[in-house]
């Protein structure tokens, strides 16, 4: 059978993998540059995980507090990331975000408004001023729908429910990608001069996560296999507030917006425990008592934030500590109470339902809890990975020529811990940048031929599970891996447990060789899981190896055996790369030097 009989072949200048906020924004930008663009969605268009984002997108527009500007946003993001961030990216993000938000409005987005008719902004953890443009608690839906509805008229070709299994390289440069469609299980080859990865996160490697089935780290693994570097993988964000009950919804996100609107955390003794532990870097930014915290929520410019609005890494650890100390709620969480604000305002119930409609709906329908009257039970959930493909901060290109990345799959903007709201602005700021530079790249470089032998080898590998109908069920390995990562490389880490995790990952790799699936290639979830597993294993290994090598506690990484920050570890990022012998090598790379003017901004904002 000839190559074209076996494969459906497409040809594009720029091919975007992923159709969440970053992928769609990149595709819009590349289309605007006049090149031929294709977008591959793992699900249907408009269903990507961006829809789950709730609280808002951070942009220093100063609509609510005019003291806000890019310098404050820059300093907040660097402080939140514990100074491991790429300062070039943080600067670009802080300067560009307001324009990107306004652009969404020009494409039809409808943000909540201030009394003066401007875009309303809300408080969020680690942001000094109210900075998050939002639509109730469904900002992600607004973002993706706006980009989708605008994007479909820009000439891009959209491929829905297709999964990429390999990036193709020729002479070290990107030449295309190989994938399959879910509907029929046919194999596709997309020839492309440049590829933009916008594949999102990795949460599915953990048992308790806010991520959907799609978050299997495909882009991370594809890039790694193609020779790119994965940086900062040890930094996995455990969002402090996921649902804990009932069991079937464990992990589903409860927006930080609840705390932004005045929600407080209490333990089983009714105590607001967040006041007990304030990190030094934030000491002069936190309210001295409950009254001042409430004033801040109400917009009093002289008040400091309540401690519930400290960064996510810190809040998650405090919650974890309360639960471990036996002061948790009946189902192993703590209490998040927004209903208490009725003591402070009339019509609190209507106010909560207007500001947090999906939270109200989600708890009412799934847990039988009325959040306007009862406290929610919440606990940490695997939410986001700060680490990802290492890229040039000016162009978003990786070390593989022609391979770009944007959004969660990328490292650099968030350092050791991401601030809430910086992810949605990340998508639109760096999606645009990646689209722009990918289009520029294809105009400057010709096409390269796809290597057919490479395509055939990858195809054989993904078809192999069908030859073993009595092989191991892929769901079993997936579950074991999720338990390993959750229990041994989770929110509190120690060397011995992580070494055990590495040994188990090796064991799963061996078991994967004997994985089998039943049925045929049409819409077969068992087969899809078998194909996702190698990606999840690569991601898990890079997280574990990096976490082992960083012998300190910083940002999202907490090591019980090294509970303090170390001066030595403040000088490097960790980079995982595939060695010529196929093993994973983790090396230390000195931090990017910060320009003096940016150093001065940080000093000024201290």
């Amino acid at each position, binding site marked *: 059978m000839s190559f074209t009989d076996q494969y459906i072949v497409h040809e594009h200048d720029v091919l975007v993998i992923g159709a969440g906020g970053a992928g769609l924004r990149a595709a819009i930008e590349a289309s605007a540059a006049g090149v031929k663009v294709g977008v591959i969605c793992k699900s249907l268009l408009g269903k990507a995980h961006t829809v789950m984002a709730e609280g808002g997108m951070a942009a220093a527009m100063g609509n609510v507090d005019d003291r806000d500007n890019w310098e404050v946003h820059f300093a907040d993001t660097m402080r939140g990331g514990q100074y491991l961030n790429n300062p070039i990216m943080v600067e670009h993000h802080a300067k560009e975000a307001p324009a990107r938000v306004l652009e969404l409005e020009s494409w039809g987005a409808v943000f909540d408004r201030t009394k003066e008719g401007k875009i309303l902004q809300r408080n969020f953890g680690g942001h000094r001023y109210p900075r998050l443009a939002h639509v109730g608690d469904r900002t992600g839906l607004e973002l993706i729908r706006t980009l989708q509805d605008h994007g479909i008229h820009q000439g891009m070709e959209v491929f829905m429910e297709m999964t990429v299994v390999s990036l193709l390289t020729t002479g070290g440069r990107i030449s295309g990608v190989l994938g399959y469609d879910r509907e029929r299980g046919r194999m596709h080859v997309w020839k492309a001069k440049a590829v933009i990865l916008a594949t999102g996160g990795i949460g599915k490697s953990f048992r308790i996560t806010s991520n959907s089935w799609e978050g299997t780290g495909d882009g991370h693994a594809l890039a790694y296999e193609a020779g790119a570097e994965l940086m900062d993988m040890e930094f996995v964000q455990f969002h402090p507030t996921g649902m804990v009950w009932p069991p079937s*919804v464990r992990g589903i996100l409860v927006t930080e917006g609840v705390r932004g609107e005045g929600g407080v955390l209490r333990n089983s003794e009714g105590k607001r425990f967040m006041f007990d532990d304030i990190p030094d870097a934030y000491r002069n930014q936190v309210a001295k008592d409950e009254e001042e915290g409430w004033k801040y929520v109400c917009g009093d410019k002289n008040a400091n934030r309540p401690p519930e609005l400290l960064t996510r890494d810190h809040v998650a650890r405090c919650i974890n500590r309360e639960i471990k100390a036996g002061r948790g709620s009946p189902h192993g969480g703590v209490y998040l109470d927004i209903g208490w604000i009725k003591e402070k305002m009339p019509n609190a119930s209507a106010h909560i339902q207007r500001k947090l409609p999906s939270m109200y709906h989600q708890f009412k329908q799934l847990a039988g809890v009325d959040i306007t009257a009862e406290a929610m039970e919440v606990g940490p959930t695997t939410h986001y990975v700060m680490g990802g493909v290492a890229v040039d901060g000016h162009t978003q290109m990786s070390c593989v020529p022609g391979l770009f990345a944007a959004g969660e799959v990328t490292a650099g903007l968030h350092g050791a811990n991401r601030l809430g709201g910086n992810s949605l602005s990340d998508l639109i700021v760096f999606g645009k940048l990646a689209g722009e530079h990918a289009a520029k790249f294809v105009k400057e470089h010709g096409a390269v031929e796809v290597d057919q032998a490479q395509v055939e080898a990858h195809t054989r590998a993904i078809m192999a599970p069908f030859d073993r109908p009595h092989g191991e069920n892929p*769901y079993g390995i997936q579950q074991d891996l999720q338990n390993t990562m959750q229990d041994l490389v989770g929110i509190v880490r120690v060397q011995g447990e992580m070494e055990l995790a590495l040994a188990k990952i090796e064991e799963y790799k061996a078991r994967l060789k004997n994985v089998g699936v039943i049925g045929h290639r049409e819409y077969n979830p068992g087969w899809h899981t078998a194909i996702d597993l190698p990606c999840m294993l690569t991601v898990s290994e890079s997280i574990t190896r990096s976490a082992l090598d960083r012998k300190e506690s910083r940002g999202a990484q907490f090591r019980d055996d090294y509970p303090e920050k170390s001066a030595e570890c403040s000088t490097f990022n960790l980079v995982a790369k595939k060695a010529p012998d196929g093993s994973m090598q983790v090396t230390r790379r000195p931090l990017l030097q910060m320009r003096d003017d940016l150093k001065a901004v940080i000093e000024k904002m201290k």
Partner: protein
Amino acid sequence: MSTETAILTEAITTSKPPADHARKVSFRIWRGDKEAGAFVEYTVNVTEGMVLLDCVHRIQAEQASDLACRWNCKAGKCGSCSAEINGKPSLMCMTRMDTLPPDKVVTVEPMRSFPLIRDLVTDVSWNFRVKKTIKPFKPRKPDNADGSWTMFQQDIDRVQEFRKCIECFLCQDVCHVIRDHHKEDEFIGPRFLMYTAALEMHPLDTEDRVGDLKNRDGIGYCNITKCCTKVCPEHIGITDNAIIPMKERVVDEFYDPITRLFRIFKGKK
């Protein structure tokens, strides 16, 4: 919650099993493709708090790894897991098992209005094609020097209601114009009538889509049975707040005698 579900919920509250008590529930799930198919029975242990999608996942993991089912967020936000549960178009992720009649077999079928791909998965691509035919958003010039616009909350409340839509297409599935009469070529369905309404009521928009609604999009086919509103998981007032006002605009523009007279004088078509 729709009235039907509310009544159902209330009716079974008394017979709810005690907490943490697993009970066996039987399912009839449609298995098959375009050519052939049949209901297959599965039995699953159901514990407190489980939703129907959990049961489908359990069947996938333990009994039928090739059972096709579309889903993403599992929190009622993405609109992927639409199906017909005991005959009612619903999201599988938001259907709690304790809201279904206990001790009865639960029937799960794919949405009937769309072509079947496999098992519970249907081909909803028609919806994406329809959306592309609707004239896109076209804003007026910015009000302010920084490129921004001034809009007030009370002017956008209605549009925000429509923009809550998660595109689960349950409204399209239940609409008899599509389901029974297959007017897909002449009628865009409640989802896109509402989408058009959201654009038409957007304070910044300058485009005119009223002619399309009448001549191309088949708004006249809607006879206000409100089935779409009843199945909407976002509780959007699709019929009352979107479709009826659009019907009124069509009437004002094309059937009002005085406006017609003006049109003749002004030479508008």
